[in-house]
């Protein structure tokens, strides 16, 4: 039971896909201008992540290694299209707001990354729990960023005016440059609060190519060039 909770909560903060693993940066920056859009994007990606992790984990022993990436992409694209069609039919305003970024969930690194790194190697239950944790982590990061940008950039929260702040907004926070600024501050804050040690993340074991790398070492050092800069 403890393992389940650990698996679930690791995605929220310790291995947050956006603020720690730095995946899904593009939709994070684009969709964090308003809280309602950020929540919509986060939950849509979470739904796709849960479904794709479930199916990929279920088929992990059937899918040949040679065609695993095309298979993952087909599965992920299918669920994205399903979410897109359902949203177009039942939540048209959110569909319009998310625009092209909804379709781009297909190429969201978080989803393909979790399929390749976790769902293809673990059981169905663990993969779903991992997807829930990572999806909520993505949603949480988007929510935090959007809250800062919308409240201080536009003086509103979910479209409702925030008294006092409304008169002292910082409009640049709504722009791309403001988005990068808030993103950087949040990453720094998470690193400071949870005392992450970046070197460990970039060791051989943390490398996405670890399974295939001929230079892989068991200790934390890496023979590849990646280790030089960290």
């Amino acid at each position, binding site marked *: 039971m403890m393992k389940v909770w650990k698996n679930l909560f690791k995605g929220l903060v310790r291995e947050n896909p956006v603020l720690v693993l730095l995946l899904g940066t593009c939709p994070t920056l684009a969709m964090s201008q308003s809280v309602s859009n950020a929540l919509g994007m986060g939950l849509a990606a979470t739904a796709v992540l849960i479904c794709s992790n479930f199916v990929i984990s279920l088929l992990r022993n059937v*899918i*040949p290694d040679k065609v695993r990436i095309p*298979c993952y992409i087909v599965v992920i*694209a*299918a669920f994205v299209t*399903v979410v897109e*069609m359902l949203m*177009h039919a*039942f939540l048209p305003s959110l569909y319009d707001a998310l625009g092209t970024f909804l379709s781009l969930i297909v190429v969201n690194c978080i989803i393909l990354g979790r399929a390749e790194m976790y769902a293809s190697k673990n059981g169905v239950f663990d993969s779903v729990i991992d997807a829930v944790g990572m999806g909520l982590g993505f949603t949480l990061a988007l929510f935090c960023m959007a809250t800062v940008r919308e409240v201080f950039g536009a003086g509103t929260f979910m479209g409702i005016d925030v008294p006092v702040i409304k008169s002292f907004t910082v409009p640049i926070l709504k722009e791309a440059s403001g988005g990068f600024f808030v993103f950087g501050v949040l990453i720094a804050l998470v690193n400071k609060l949870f005392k992450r040690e970046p070197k460990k993340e970039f060791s051989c074991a943390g490398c996405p190519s670890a399974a295939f790398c001929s230079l892989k070492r068991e200790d934390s050092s890496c023979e590849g060039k990646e280790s030089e800069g960290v």
Partner: protein
Amino acid sequence: MNKNIKSIVVLFSICLVVAVLLAAVNYITDPIIKKNALLAEQASLRVVLEGAEEFEELSLGEGTPATVTGLYKEINGLGYVVTVSTSSSYSQSPMTFTVGVTAGGKIADIEITNYSETKNFEDYPDSFKGLGGSEINGVDVFSGVTYSSEAFKTALSDALTTVEEVAAK
């Protein structure tokens, strides 16, 4: 060889299942999406014809000016709504607008739906409210936006001519 065949079979099977799943979801959502689009279109038409309830789309006959892109008749006989796009020779991004015409042939309201020029029209379209087809030329062009004003007036005149022809039938 066997591995290759297995790869092909697995990938093909996944694609097949996905296609069936998408077809099923599309079967459920497509009518709702079309209904929503129709409601949104009807709402955009109601904006320019006060009191209108529902519209039926009329087919554009031969000889209809290229600037007229759609013609709708209010089912209770309140009037017509015409969707208009200015001539492509005016700009790479033509101005589009919706004009409501009363049963008496007068302009009820105009809603600009696309205008990408740098200098704005402001409330220029409002100066045509209540005018009939023959009175459009009497309105001066908007200072500083001469080309857009001319293109707008030509397209508006086309819209009213089309309505007059349909009403006369």
